[in-house]
């Protein structure tokens, strides 16, 4: 029996969560060590798995299918393809970093920090299942189950209004989940009518559902995903959750957990409802562009740092959705690549802001000023993370943003032009934030601010290094993504626009590729 790679990848964090919870309540640090240990273990397993996909070394990773509910035809089906690989890599990498970053965050709370770490591992396990699942029912169950631990993480630890933010987050996503449940059932009914009732994704993709039903199921799924990956009208929960949750929790929420929404769009909605997606694409593109500009403008107008970064995430999610629904190969690859980069850059930004807040004790931008002088390294890291936020070229976020814009330009020119406005606005909000907090005369309150400690460097360094390395060598990741995106778009049955002036023949062979 081959080694069930994928199931172990999910089992590890789940096991970790249980063990962390079992640690006697007095021993806080032991619980943290156990949790981080398991997170690192998952990272190792994840790395081994992705080696097979990135560098085509056969590690024996096979799709796994086990019976779950035979009557429905629901099965524990796991498989890994380009898109989910990128996101699995992101999750597996982000969790140890977030665990390390929140080492002291749950300290002052009356409650024992081990619950916080156990919840983090639970969320990781659920997110991994979501990315790997090839079964719509399993995906739905995990999609809903993820909300509970996140609700507790936001609700138990965090800022003054955390309960309001947690409830708002839960209610918003539950409404989405409801719509999706209806759609999942509708889908099942379709599969029953068509002969073999099953939730297995490839079977469901093979179904040809008539357009009107497709529209209804499309709306069901899209509402849930549009809320999860905040698209414009459904976004008000993210800024509250980001502002109230602890910085590393907010990082994990918007960096990794929300990616399930955009993953759902590209891996489920496009192949399952090709006609509806094609017809609805212009509407979604408009919404995406609106959330790009809206998110950016609001980010500029914010006074609370974490809320500002929350809004920047909305703008970035706008880019991702734009990339997905531009329905061109380039844009879709760019969007998936964007998900990974946005994950890294948002986690870096949130974590660094977390350091600032833990030092100064306040989230308001005006309470800072001139941090550059007492803590140059912190300012430098903040600038680097900020630059990754505004997609400066050598960093990886630039390539993904460029691919999305150029991919969208192929099909929706006005949308791409307005979206490009986003890069100017992103420069504005990041640099204005940097200027108000870091430069200028040193504020008395900021005087004795200590610089980065080793733990903090250990947290941020891998992220920034990764942003740089992936920025210079994006090819392995983008190739893996491109392989998976191609068939999805073929599935949607949309023709890729050809260049208008094909390459002239007489280009001499001199310019070897």
């Amino acid at each position, binding site marked *: 029996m081959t080694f069930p790679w994928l199931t172990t990848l999910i089992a590890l964090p789940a096991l970790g969560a249980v063990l962390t919870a079992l640690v006697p309540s007095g021993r806080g640090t032991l619980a943290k060590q156990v949790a981080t240990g398991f997170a690192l273990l998952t990272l190792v397993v994840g790395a081994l798995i992705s080696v097979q996909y990135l560098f085509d070394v056969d590690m024996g990773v096979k799709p796994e299918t086990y019976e779950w509910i035979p009557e429905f035809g629901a099965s524990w089906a796991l498989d890994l393809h380009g898109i989910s690989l990128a996101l699995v890599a992101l999750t597996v990498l982000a969790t140890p970093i977030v665990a390390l970053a929140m080492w002291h965050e749950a300290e002052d709370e009356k409650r024992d920090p081990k619950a916080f770490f156990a919840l983090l591992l639970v969320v990781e396990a659920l997110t991994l299942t979501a990315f790997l699942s090839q079964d719509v029912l399993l995906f739905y169950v995990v999609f809903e189950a993820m909300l509970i631990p996140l609700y507790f993480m936001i609700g138990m630890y965090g800022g003054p209004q955390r309960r309001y933010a947690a409830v708002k987050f839960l209610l918003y996503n539950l409404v989405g989940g409801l719509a999706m449940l209806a759609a999942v059932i509708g889908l099942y009914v379709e599969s029953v009518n068509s002969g073999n009732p099953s939730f297995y994704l490839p079977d469901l993709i093979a179904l040809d559902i008539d357009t009107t039903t497709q529209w209804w199921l499309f709306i069901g799924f899209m509402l849930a995903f549009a809320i999860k990956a905040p698209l414009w009208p459904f976004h008000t929960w993210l800024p509250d959750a980001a502002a109230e949750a602890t910085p590393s929790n907010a990082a994990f929420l918007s960096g990794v957990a929300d990616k399930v929404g955009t993953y759902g769009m590209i891996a489920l909605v496009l192949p399952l409802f090709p006609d509806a997606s094609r017809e609805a694409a212009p509407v979604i593109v408009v919404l995406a562009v609106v959330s790009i500009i809206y998110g950016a403008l*609001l980010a500029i107008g914010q006074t609370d740092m974490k809320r500002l970064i929350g809004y920047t995430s909305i703008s970035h999610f706008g880019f991702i959705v734009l990339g997905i629904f531009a329905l061109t*190969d*380039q844009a879709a690859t760019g969007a998936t690549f964007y998900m990974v980069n946005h994950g890294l850059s948002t986690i870096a930004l949130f974590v660094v802001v977390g350091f600032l807040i833990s030092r100064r004790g306040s989230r308001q931008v005006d309470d800072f000023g001139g941090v550059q*002088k007492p803590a140059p390294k912190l300012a430098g890291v903040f600038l680097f993370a900020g630059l990754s936020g505004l997609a400066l070229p050598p960093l990886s976020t630039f390539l993904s943003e460029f691919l999305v814009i150029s991919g969208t330009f192929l099909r929706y020119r006005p949308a791409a032009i307005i979206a490009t406005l986003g*890069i100017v606005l992103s*420069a504005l909000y990041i640099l204005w934030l940097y200027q108000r907090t870091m430069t*200028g005369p040193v504020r008395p309150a900021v005087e004795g601010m200590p610089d980065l400690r080793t733990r903090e460097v250990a947290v941020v360094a891998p992220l920034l290094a990764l942003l740089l390395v992936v920025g210079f060598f994006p*090819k392995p990741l983008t190739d893996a993504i491109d392989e998976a995106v191609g068939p999805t778009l073929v599935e949607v049955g949309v023709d890729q626009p050809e260049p208008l002036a094909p390459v002239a023949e007489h*280009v001499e062979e001199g310019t070897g590729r």
Partner: protein
Amino acid sequence: MTSTLSALATAVATEGGHGGGQVATAATGVFDLTWLLIAFPLLGAAILLLGGRRTDKVGHLIGCAASIASFVMGVVLFFAMVGEPSDGRAFTVQLWEYVNAGGYSVDVSLLLDQLSISFVLLITGVGSLIHIYSIGYMEHDERRRRFFGYLNLFVAAMLLLVLASDYLILFIGWEGVGLASYLLIGFWQHKDSASVAAKKAFVVNRVGDMGMVLAMASMITVFGSTAFDVVFASAEGASTGWLTVIGLFLLLGACGKSAQFPLQSWLLDAMEGPTPVSALIHAATMVTAGVYLIVRSSAIYDLAPDARTAVVVVGAITLLMGAIIGCAKDDIKKALAGSTMSQIGYMVLAAGLGPAGYAFAIFHLLTHGFFKANMFLGAGSVMHGMHDEVNMRRYGGLRILMPATFLTFAMGYLAIIGIPPFAGYFSKDKIIEAAFADNWITGLATLIGAGITAFYMTRLMLMTFFGNRRWKQSEPPHESPPVMTGPLWVLGALSVVGGFGLLYVGAGIVDWLAPVTGEAHHDLPMPLWLLITITLATVVVGVAIAWAMYGRRAVREDVPAGNPLTVAARNDLYGDAFNEAVFMRPGQYLTRSLVYFENRGVDGAVVGTATAVGGLSARLRRLQTGFVRSYAVTMLGGVGVVVLAMLLVRLP
């Protein structure tokens, strides 16, 4: 040395007609090491920035070493290229494949040809001189190591920009340069004005970058790739409409980076940065990136005449604006910045004239690099002596106290106003000739520009070095240390011989660039000698006026009222005011109202539904009175309804 000259001479005769068709061959031998050009400064920057405290003492030396190493490599490559036959001087160095997404593939590869090697020499040459200069200038700044790190970062990014063989890789260098200028302008971050100026520079550059991104996106739409060879080769196949669009977008990018007309507001504020920064970035190299872009995309502009006319128009406008602003500025660096803006206007105008003007644009660019850097460094040493006083109304009579600075500055001054033996005369005259050949208006614009340039440069010279002493500090200003005056002498010498050297030594710049940019002989509307005398006459008139106003009469300490034009010029011809009124204030208003709309509207709607449900349930609660008898009434009503329902449903 002579053998290379003869080789140059033989190569002169052949080439003519439309350029850009030159095909680059795979690099072999020494050319394969082109990537070292970028690697040295990048390595230097990495060591300095990541090195931390340990590299403080020796930081500046590492910086200079990296820059000089790169310059030496550049010279080696130059002479190796000269050795090559004139039609086979373009080489590509394939490094690694950057990305291949859905049919659009990009390789990280470098293109070394005549155009890029001349830029490499300018960047690394002037760069190294400025590195040496800043050892002295930044001596007592405790963050000097970081300064040299940023300088190296800038040089590396600029080299990547000029050596890239794909617009995307060029764009990486493009934004890298933008980042370096942000860091360097805002180097003295404790000064609020510096960080605001840095942010402004970056954001305005970013607006230009928007144009670049859209240009590349349209290239992908039209050609399916952004590589130079693919784009230039299949340029004929594309529709002129698309080419014009690409041309205009590229122009927008160039304006952003080279501070041309619509996006020029950031250059004058960029003077907040240390003077070597202004010299290197905002005079010699970065601001010329726009010109490089236009010249490099000559294939596109040749097929898009309206785009080219736009370039000329933008060049002309900036030329005049820069000159007028230069006249009214009392701050020496701002005056020089104004003159930079107008000189780049010249280059852009020349680049807009098509094959006739490309070579002259680059020629003027190189000479301008020499004398403008020279003058900026001169101004730096003046400020160094005057304890960082920038207002020229506090100077006066410095020629005796700072002879070296005065002499080198004078060389630069004579070069820029275009006195025959000096560099400026050759390069600017060629542009004026090309402009007149093109049409009367541009010719006239360049002529007037030359006149005004003479006026404000003379004004600057008189206020700084001649006239009564107006400075008040205790001990008199001392001459700068040799480490600073050395580069000044070298640059001074270059601004003297640079013009003649580049034009006539060997085949001359025009033929050197011909394979890249092509060459077109233009017929003048009037005999050449007449045109030259007219230009010289306008220059002399400009000098005379300036001397009349500032030479004879004593320079006033207080700022005179001045007519509306000078007031306008003092406010950068209301460029900033316009940006604020049209973009800044409405933008802030928009963000505030959006924040309000977000809290009330979208969020309000969500919270509103919650409170509505609460209100409804409060009202329903009152229905339950607690009295058994009112419940009995509802029960009876219920019975009635059930009976009615059963009746209606008519259960079988």
